[in-house]
């Protein structure tokens, strides 16, 4: 029995030491990523007065550099494509934990999918995996049930197959990063879009409780840190969904502001400014960002 325990302990110790060497794999994985925003957040490098939150509509429809120029607030875009509210809440918490809180947050709302958990929106674990070397990120992955608590002890438990890349990951040519973190869509697809005039319906039955809670949490965090939230409704290539808007206003804290794109602006009925039904091209984003700037200046 003694020999058994002696050998098991020795084997385990040797393995532990070797397993910790996998830190080099983790370190390399993070260096290969093109999206450095989360890493910059954790390094406390994003101390801006205005931050943009949202999913792909926040990422591509709001140009942070233009906002900075037009409003005078130093700005940065922290929107992530396909990010749901749970992920946006996580990003907000990271901002507060490692950086000076901003004065304002511009949050792009997905009309009408913001609170619906059954769309393609998700918690962007794929953005977290390459940054597993950070204990903060690893803890979040444990919260998300993507890692076991063993990973707190063993670096090798944080390694995954997709970390064995040989080359740097390049951003897609469709929407590369601009300065200040925005990713406007620079290509226009072939084919025409048809403007829909049918007023869409909205039912609260599609809402996901955890999303509603995350939305409330975000507002509470901002309130606690004296951050004003400006909810912005970007245009879709269809008539404005006021049913969702009315529901949204019920969930919004009164101290926050809401801005809806200029529904009378003919540009939003012109498909040359749209990549698809719910995403603007860079030219469209410029028009929309100007509207937001004017709204912010009017506050």
């Amino acid at each position, binding site marked *: *029995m003694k020999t*058994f325990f002696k050998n*098991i302990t020795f*084997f385990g110790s040797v393995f532990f030491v070797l397993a910790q060497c996998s830190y080099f794999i983790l370190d390399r994985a993070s260096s290969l990523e093109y999206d450095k925003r989360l890493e910059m957040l954790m390094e406390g490098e994003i101390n801006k007065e205005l931050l943009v939150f949202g999913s792909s509509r926040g990422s591509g429809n709001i140009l942070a550099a233009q906002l900075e120029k037009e409003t005078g607030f130093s700005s940065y875009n922290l929107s992530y494509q396909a990010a749901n509210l749970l992920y946006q809440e996580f990003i907000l918490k990271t901002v507060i934990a490692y950086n000076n809180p901003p004065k304002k947050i511009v949050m792009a709302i997905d009309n009408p999918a913001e609170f619906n958990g059954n769309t393609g929106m998700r918690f962007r674990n794929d953005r977290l995996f390459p940054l597993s070397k950070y204990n903060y990120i690893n803890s979040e992955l444990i919260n998300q049930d993507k890692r076991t608590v063993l990973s707190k002890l063993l670096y090798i438990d944080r390694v995954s*197959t997709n970390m064995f890349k040989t080359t740097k990951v390049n951003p897609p040519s469709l929407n590369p990063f601009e300065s200040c973190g925005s990713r406007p869509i620079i290509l226009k697809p072939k084919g025409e879009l048809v403007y829909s005039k049918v007023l869409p319906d909205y039912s609260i039955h599609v809402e996901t409780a955890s999303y509603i809670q995350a939305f409330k949490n975000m507002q509470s965090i901002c309130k606690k840190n004296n951050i004003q939230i400006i909810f912005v409704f970007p245009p879709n290539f269809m008539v404005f969904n006021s049913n969702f808007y009315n529901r949204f206003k019920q969930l919004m804290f009164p101290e926050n502001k809401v801005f809806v794109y200029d529904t009378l602006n003919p540009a939003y009925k012109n498909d040359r400014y749209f990549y698809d039904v719910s995403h603007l091209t860079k030219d469209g984003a410029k028009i929309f960002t100007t509207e937001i700037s004017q709204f912010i200046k009017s506050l």
Partner: protein
Amino acid sequence: MLFNSLDFAVFLPVVFLLYWFITSKNLKHQNLLLVVASYVFYGWWDYRFLALIFLSSIVDYSIGLQLKKDRKSSRRKRLLGLSIVFNLGFLGFFKYYNFFADNFVEVFSFFGKQISSNTLNIILPVGISFYTFQTLSYTIDVYKRKLEPTTDFISFLAFVSFFPQLVAGPIERATNLLPQFYKKRKFQYNKAVDGCRQILWGLFKKIVIADNCAEYANQIFNDTNEYSGSTLVIGAVFFTFQIYGDFSGYSDIAIGTSRLFGFNLKQNFATPYFSRDMAEFWRRWHISLSTWFRDYLYIPLGGSRGSTRVSVRNTLIIFLVSGFWHGANWTYIVWGFLNALYFLPLLLWHRNRINTNIVAENRSLPSFIELLQMGFTFCLSVFAWIFFRADSIAHAMNFISRIFSNTLFKLPTVRPTYLIVIVVLFIIIEWLGRHGKHTLETLFSNNSRALRWAFYMVLIGCIFIFKGEEQEFIYFQF
């Protein structure tokens, strides 16, 4: 509790230490500890069904004692019948009630009579098929006077609920396992180390092979219509490795864990994908179930000793029942039937016992003929697994018809290189270790400790790095 969970990683050392350091002086205490540990292990999943195991144990224990007392053949028969009805009754209710209810309704509607279906929302207790067969084997062996009924209730409870093999086998015979609870167990270094090796290989098979293959197999089987014939073949092959890695991995962990506690369980898999014909495959796949059916169903029915008609009938029965044992779905029955069709020609031409040794026993590589035979047998099993994995017969037929379409020769759209490399390496390692009772038993046994340890560390590293999305063991549902 899952073998591949952190819970079990804590549970096992705790029980191990209590077993060898606190209760080792008293056999009864040691057995009682195993009972408690087993009930905790099972209750971790759903404590409500512990009552079922306990009830099953009490009934078979009592019937065993009664069988000893009764000398009258008719009364003994009635007692055996009672045990069979009781055990199979539970199994039938929990596992097959809805299946029969649904099919009953369908048969009536076929004849134009509409009746409403009265299916129930029944949770299938994990492992019920395994421990039911285990307790049944006890009563049958006592009835046949092959085994003295036990008077030690704690040992019997431990035999029925022994945690390493409780939920997914191997299905142990009372004649093999029960007597091991009567004898004082001594810690044996070599046995424990070999047990650890077997656990390691089992974890590798489950976490690296089965869980990774499962991701792609599920993706392809769930969207059959989206893929080309060649991709569907890849999906079927991945499922073939998934089910092997999953189930034989579980058996390895179960057997290895038992060895840590001084027990010897039966070998359940013997590199079945290196079989040269389907008869050999069935001697190497899920051995504890095949031999159970052989001893308690096939031989009592007359086996292959009667006329050709009887042999064919018995073979069909055993394969159909085996299929049905796996689940209450027609797909499993067709899977069983298909295997019977594979097996029958060998039986009829008396070629079912020609490959009883290990392939390429004294050689490092198989001959060309052996390679062809293995390849053919593997293809047959891949084809049969399609039915096993499909949700329905229609799904399986659609899957097969799409395979044999003109897209069969297109480049597969799903071809994960890393997984293909891992599976190929896995096959090589299994080939090298095919002589042992488990793959790592003999592999590197003549090499230095440093090399062996390095190999084990690589395996553990792979388990961490290549762990797929966690999947429940497939055989839990059976």
